[in-house]
């Protein structure tokens, strides 16, 4: 999907618009959501594997505990990312008319 996005942007404006329309379509959004869950799970569990590579967390109860930490961090990272994505902090979101709302929305920082 990232590859499609990049290649479409380089190809033409129409191709880019098609890619963006797909991403904002419910099916495309569900696919991106699934991808984000898989990505964060892979990231968290990958870090667990890197700990194992250094010889840590090999006791069975620690391995289990790290497994639950992985699941928890997957949920938290996914939730944080989608909270940021859906709370309208994007500087590219359609222009907001109400000036008070603009000020309320813009200074928010990112968290990931």
């Amino acid at each position, binding site marked *: 999907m*990232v*590859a499609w996005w*990049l*290649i479409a*942007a*380089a*190809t033409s*404006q129409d191709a*880019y*618009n098609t890619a*963006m329309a797909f991403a*904002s379509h419910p099916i495309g959004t569900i696919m991106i959501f699934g991808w*984000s869950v898989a*990505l964060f799970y892979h*990231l968290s569990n*990958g*870090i667990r*594997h*890197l700990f194992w*590579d250094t010889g840590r967390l090999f006791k069975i109860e620690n391995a289990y505990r790290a497994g639950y930490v992985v699941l928890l961090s997957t949920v938290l990272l996914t939730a944080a*990312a989608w909270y*940021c*994505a859906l709370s309208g*902090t*994007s*500087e*590219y*979101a*359609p222009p907001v008319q109400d000036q008070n709302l603009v000020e309320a929305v813009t200074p928010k920082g*990112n968290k*990931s």
Partner: protein
Amino acid sequence: MKLKWNDSGMKSPLARARGLGSAHEGTEHWMAQRVTAVALIPLVFWLVFSIISLKGASHAQFTTWLEHPINAVMMILFIIASLYHAVLGAQVVVEDYIHSEWFKTLKLIGNKLFFFGLGIACIFSILKIAL
């Protein structure tokens, strides 16, 4: 299962090992997988943050964003690290779970060609926009 070293008169242990993974290339593969994994930790956070901040961007806004050297370089780094990591990971899956010799070879070659082609297409696209 048909094994290649049973078919010929030559039955040296080297012929048995060659091409089956454990022929002086395992450590490099393993290390590259870890190095790309470590590199991808910050790159993934950068990518997710960037995608979120680019939500709803028009074509012009997106190309302007990608023209910035930091964004272009980070994107190329992400493409190289992630696709290299994907090649290595998919290779392990194929080596471990495909037991037909010819199909395994086909998948291993196809795996490398597919991700190499995808990577070149992505990097070309980034450079076309950024330069």
